[in-house]
C-alpha cells in the first residue's frame, strides 16, 4: 500500500501558480512570460520522447502480447507485432480467471474506499480544522496523521487475526482497512485545503440559522469538491491496485480482487503468455482510463496541497 505523494502544509510560501503552466525557462536566453511564443526546445523534447519509451515499451509489449496467438507468444520475439491478430485471448482470460466476479469485487471495494475516505476524512478534517483550539481535536489530528508512518507489515498479522475474529476476513474488511489507511494522507490534504476556506462564509450561514451539520453538507462539502476529487483519485488508485492486503485479509480465494487474481493464476497461465497479458491488460485498463479522465484534478490538488 504505497503512499503516493506526501505534501506537508509547511512547505513553500511561494505564490499560487494558478493551475496551468507557468513554466520555468529552458536554459536558453529567452524572454519570459510569453507563453506559446518561444520556440520549443527541440533537444529536450527529443530527449523526453526517448525517455518516454521506457514507459511506452512495456505497455506496448503488454498490448501486443495480449493480441498474439499462442504460437507467436512463445516464439521469443516480444517486440514483434501480432500477426495474425488474436482477439480471443481476452475471452479466454475472462473465462479462466472468472474476471467479472473479481472485477465486481474490485469495483465494490474501491467504490466503498473512495466514498468512505472522502466522507470520513472530510468530516473529520472539518471538525479538526474548525476546532483547532481544542486539545481533543488537535491531538486527534496528530494521532490520525501518525498512521502515515505505520507501515502495513507492522499491523498486518494482527489485522488478519482481528478481521477473522469479527467476520471481516473478506472484501468488506479490506474496504474498511483501505479507508483507515487512507485517512492520514486524505486528512492532510483536506485540512490544508480547509485552511483556505474563509470561515466568514460559515459564520454568515450560521447567522442565517443553519446548523453545523447543514453548514458542512450544504456549504463546505461542495466547496471541497476539487480536493475531494484529488483525495478520491488517490484513494481509488491505492485501493484498486492494492495487492498485499487483500491477499492476506480475504480468506476465500474466490472473493479476491483483480491484482491478487493475477497472482493466483500466474502458475496456471504458465507459458500461455498471450492469455496472461490479456488478463493483465484487462486488470490495468480501468485504472488507466479513470486516471486519464481525471488527471487534471490530481495535478491541481497536489499543487494546491504543496502551496498550502
Amino acid at each position, binding site marked *: 500500500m504505497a503512499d503516493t505523494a506526501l505534501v506537508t502544509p509547511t512547505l513553500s510560501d511561494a505564490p499560487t501558480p494558478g493551475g496551468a503552466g507557468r513554466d520555468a525557462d529552458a536554459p536558453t536566453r529567452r524572454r519570459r512570460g510569453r507563453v506559446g511564443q518561444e520556440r520549443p526546445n527541440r533537444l529536450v523534447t527529443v530527449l523526453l520522447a526517448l525517455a518516454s519509451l521506457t514507459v511506452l515499451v512495456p505497455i506496448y509489449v503488454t498490448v501486443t502480447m495480449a493480441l498474439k496467438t499462442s504460437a507467436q507468444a512463445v516464439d521469443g520475439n516480444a517486440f514483434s507485432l501480432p500477426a495474425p491478430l488474436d482477439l480471443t485471448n481476452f475471452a479466454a482470460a475472462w473465462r479462466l480467471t472468472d474476471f467479472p466476479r473479481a472485477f465486481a469485487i474490485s469495483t465494490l471495494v474501491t467504490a466503498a474506499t473512495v466514498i468512505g475516505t472522502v466522507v470520513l476524512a472530510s468530516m473529520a478534517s472539518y471538525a479538526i480544522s474548525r476546532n483547532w483550539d481544542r486539545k481533543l481535536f488537535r491531538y486527534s489530528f496528530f494521532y490520525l496523521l501518525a498512521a502515515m508512518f505505520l507501515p502495513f507489515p507492522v499491523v498486518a*498479522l494482527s489485522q*488478519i*487475526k482481528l*478481521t*477473522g*475474529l*469479527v*467476520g*471481516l*476476513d473478506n472484501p468488506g474488511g479490506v474496504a474498511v482497512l483501505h479507508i483507515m489507511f487512507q485517512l492520514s494522507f486524505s486528512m492532510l490534504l483536506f485540512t490544508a485545503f480547509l485552511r483556505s476556506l474563509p470561515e466568514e462564509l460559515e459564520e454568515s450561514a*450560521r*447567522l*442565517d*440559522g443553519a*446548523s*453545523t451539520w447543514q453548514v458542512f453538507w450544504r456549504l463546505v462539502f461542495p466547496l471541497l469538491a476539487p480536493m475531494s476529487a484529488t483525495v478520491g483519485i488517490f484513494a481509488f488508485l491505492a485501493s484498486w491496485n492494492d495487492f498485499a492486503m487483500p491477499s492476506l485479509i480475504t*480468506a476465500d*480465494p474466490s472473493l479476491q480482487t483483480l491484482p491478487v487474481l493475477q497472482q493466483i493464476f500466474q502458475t496456471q497461465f504458465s507459458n500461455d503468455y498471450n492469455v496472461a497479458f490479456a488478463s493483465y491488460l484487462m486488470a490495468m485498463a480501468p485504472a488507466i482510463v479513470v486516471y486519464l479522465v481525471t488527471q487534471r484534478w490530481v495535478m491541481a490538488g497536489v499543487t494546491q496541497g504543496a502551496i498550502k
Partner: protein
Amino acid sequence: MPTPPLPSGAGLSRRALLGGIGAAGAALLLAGCAPSGVRSGGRTEITFYQTKPEAIGYFSDLVDRFNASQSSIRVVHDSTSGIAAGFVRGNPPDIAAFTYNLEMARFMERGALSDLSDMPEAATIRPEVQQLVDQYATYPGRTSVLPYSITAASVIYDQRLFADRGVEVPTTWEEFLAACQTFTSAGVTPIYSTFKEPWTVAQGLFDYTTGGMLDVADFYERMNAEGTAVGRTGSVSFEKDFAEPVDRMIQLAGLSNPNRNSRGYGDGNLAMAEGQAAMLMQGPWALGEISKSNPDARIGTFPLPMTADPDDRKVRVNLDLALWVPESSSKKSAAREFLSYLMQPDIHDAYNRDFLAFGTTTTAPPVTDERIVGMQTYYDEARFYQGASKAIPLTIPAENYVQGIVTGASAQGTLRTMDADWRRLALRA
C-alpha cells in the same frame, strides 16, 4: 437577527452521543463475533479440510455419499485453503484429513486439536503407528490425531533389470554396493537421481541413508533436549551423528546418472518407466506415475540396507493422512460422526488399497500390490522410521542444504551450519 441558541436543539448531549456511538460499535463487534452456527435447510454444516491433490476427487465422492446417506449433517469439502490461515483467523475447519508432520505437531502442541481418545475408533489404531505421532510432539492427556494412512517408501527398483543381470535384492550395505558395481559394469545406471528438486534429495537419498543407520526418533529427541548446546557442549549434533550417513549419501550420488543435477521428479519417473536405470530413491507416490508412463513396467521396492546386518533394515514411513478435529470447532459432534464414517473399515481399507498405502488399524488387511508388498513385513514388525528431513523445522532450509551437499557443497560445513541454525532456533523455541 438574534444569535440562535447553541445547536443542541436535538436534545443530544455530548455524553448521550458518545454513549450511543459506543453502543453501536459494541453491537457491531458482537454481531461479527457471533458463532456461525450455519444451518442449511435444517442440517448442521461442517467443513472438511483435505488438500492432497491426488485424493481430492476421491474424497469429494465420499463427501457426496455421506451427505446422501443421512440428513442431519452436510459436509463441505475444502480443498484449497492454507492450513494455518484458518487457525490464525479463528475459523479453522471442523475436521481435516491432512498429512501429519512437524508443522502440524506445533498445532497439536499448542492445544489446537481436540481430544479424540474417547472415540471407539481411537482404540483400533496400531500402537506403533500412534507412536509415530508422538515422535514430533505431544499434548499430554490427549489423543489429538488419529492416523489414517501410512505411506512407506524405500528403494524403487526395476525387477527386470535386476533379473537380467542376476542381481538379488541386497540385504547389506556391501551387497548394495556390489549390486551397483554390477550395473555400472554392465552399462546400466545403478541409481537415477533428480537433484534439481531439493525435496527429492531430502526424502530420498538423505532420509534413506540416515534412517538406515541411526535411530532417527531418538536422535531428534536428544537434539530437542539439548537445544542450544547442540554442536557445542552437547552429546549429539548433525555434524557428528550425520557425518557417516551423509558420506555414504555422497557416495550413492556418485553412482547416479551424469545429468542428475538438472533432472527433476518427473524425469526420474519417466526414466524408470523406460528402464533407463536400475533404482530410484523415491516414494510410493511415484509408482502411479511410473505405471502411467509404462503399464508393463515390473517395479518393486526394498529398503536401503545401510549396515552389515540385514536385521537393521527399515523402511521410511510418513503419516500421509491423519484425522483431527480442532478444539475451537463448535460442531465437534457432527465432525466426529463424519470421522467415524471415514474410519469405517470398508471405507478406510479401500482408501489405503487404492492409494498404495498401509492401513493404520489393527484390523487393516496386508497390501497386495506387487510394487509395495516387499515392505509389508517391515511395516508389520514396526521396522520403520520417519524421515530425518521431516523433523527439521521449516525455518531451517534442510532440503536446500541437502541439495547443496549432493551437488558439491562441503558436507561438514553444511552440517555445521545446520547445527548453528538449530541452536539459534532452540534459543527462541
